[in-house]
């Protein structure tokens, strides 16, 4: 499905601020895998997602998707296969446009956009049916500008938008981190529902150790641009949150860098 072959990403190459963000990373992701990614700040988690999405070009290595080499393709040409959700709920939707307009934009992800009206009655009906799944009452607010919705509503809408056109791969970059705990839980539930039901291959960055082990079927830990742990199956099921945190402590030199993962 997704294959990374010896990927290296260097920021500010050749300057004093040079930083190797991804260090010769290889990763094979079979179809249907739901991988959670953990690691301290600056471990390269987000950079990894950005390289997969095509936002950052890589210095070395090869990225292939469904056997096709996509290393040289810009982000917008990978978007037909890859859907993304960002940490900031404002990033996934256009605030000045209405709920239905945002959905119409997402309905054409990766496809040619023509000169027909973006919204017609049958599309509107389709949007309404989809919004019912969220149980947020948004089906009655199709004409409301998205900026009037709460962060949680926007993130839930973004999630729904990614499934309007079935992606092959979903990239989630701490997409519940900036929501209040209750909303975060709801959005996470929705994620599992939408992703697991459709068996979409998923990479999810999280700071929450519990989430990292309970969600998905595989967990990788990153540190200084490398993958230092890759567990699945029985090994993962036996792993406790305490053990994972211990492991994390070991690699990060005895320091737990983020309170967030202990508090949750």
């Amino acid at each position: 499905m997704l294959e990374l072959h010896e990927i290296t990403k260097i920021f500010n190459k050749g300057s004093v601020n040079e930083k190797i963000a991804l260090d010769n990373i290889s990763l094979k992701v079979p179809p249907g895998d739901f991988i959670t990614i953990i690691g301290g700040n600056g471990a390269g988690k987000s950079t990894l997602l950005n390289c997969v999405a095509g936002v950052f070009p890589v210095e070395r290595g090869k990225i292939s998707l469904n056997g096709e080499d996509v290393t040289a393709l810009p982000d917008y040409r990978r978007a037909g296969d890859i859907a993304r959700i960002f940490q900031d709920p404002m990033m996934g939707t256009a605030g000045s446009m209405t709920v239905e307009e945002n959905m119409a934009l997402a309905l054409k992800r990766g496809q040619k956009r023509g000169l027909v009206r973006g919204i017609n009655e049958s599309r509107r009906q389709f949007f309404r049916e989809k919004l019912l799944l969220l149980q947020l009452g948004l089906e009655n607010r199709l004409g409301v500008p998205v900026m009037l919705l709460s962060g949680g509503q926007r993130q839930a809408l973004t999630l729904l938008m990614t499934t309007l056109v079935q992606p092959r791969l979903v990239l989630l970059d701490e997409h519940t981190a900036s929501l209040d705990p209750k909303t975060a839980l709801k959005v996470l539930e929705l994620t599992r529902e939408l992703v697991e039901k459709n068996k979409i291959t998923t990479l999810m960055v999280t700071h929450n150790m519990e989430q990292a082990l309970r969600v998905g079927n595989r967990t990788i830990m990153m540190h200084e641009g490398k993958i230092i742990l890759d567990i699945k199956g029985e090994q993962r099921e036996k792993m406790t949150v305490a053990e994972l945190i211990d492991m994390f402590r070991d690699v990060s030199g005895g320091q737990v860098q983020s309170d967030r993962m202990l508090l949750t």
Partner: protein
Amino acid sequence: MNLTVFEGAFIQGLIYGLMVLGVFLTFRILDFPDLTVDGSITLGAAVAASLIITGIDPVVATLLAPLAGALAGLVTGVLHAKFAIPPLLAGILSMIGLYSINLRVLGRPNLPLLRQPTIYEYLAGAGFTLRSSEFILSAAVALILILLLYYFLNTETGQALRATGDNEIMMRSLGVNTGRMKIMGLALSNGMVALSGAMIAQYQGFADVSMGIGTIVAGLASVIVGEVLLGRSRIMVWLFAVLLGSILYRLIIALVLKLGFQPTDLKLFTAAIVTIALISPFFKDYLKKVKA
């Protein structure tokens, strides 16, 4: 008081309204302050005027002007989208380059259209006075353009254009080449600006190489005046607000001239309008704080 001046200002407001709609498209929809317009309005005027002088039908000349304008917008767009030049600088480069091009097209700094046919005479031939045919034609073109824009902004491509100005990162993640979107928007906008220039030249009877100076500021002032009056709740309302803003702006200018100011004072006056509109939010906040 002689009202003819205000009739003329009203018609000017309609014709310049095409330019203002173009400025609206870049400034408000794409969030791209585009200075190309100072050059492209003159380009439109120069292309139309010089074609008419050589005996080309005024309608054809008027329709060719927007193509030249679109080309100018395309250059600005490519400078920005392909070579990462900041919007203001990309616009300035096009604007300065266009000054020389406009002089070439005109052949001299000022090209009069005395005793030349214009688009306004077509209707005048059908029994209307020249004044009323100027009014009918400019109102019709402005209205058609608003309807076309309204339709376009609600198409799949038009929605993508609006979303590009709102959230570029999102649109790239949805598979839209946002650079190409901006180029398209700038070409469209400057095409409209050049059409406005072509119609202005025929209305005033000449094209002048310096007629475009300050166009962007007049355009911004018009957009802001319209928004203050009608708001921007829905796209259709917003488009009409912008046209209304253009008409009011020209009427205000006419009034200021009536009051005895010199035409050369107008630029300062326009700059003041825009400045006041731009800084008023700060004063609103300040007043709130003072009250609290």
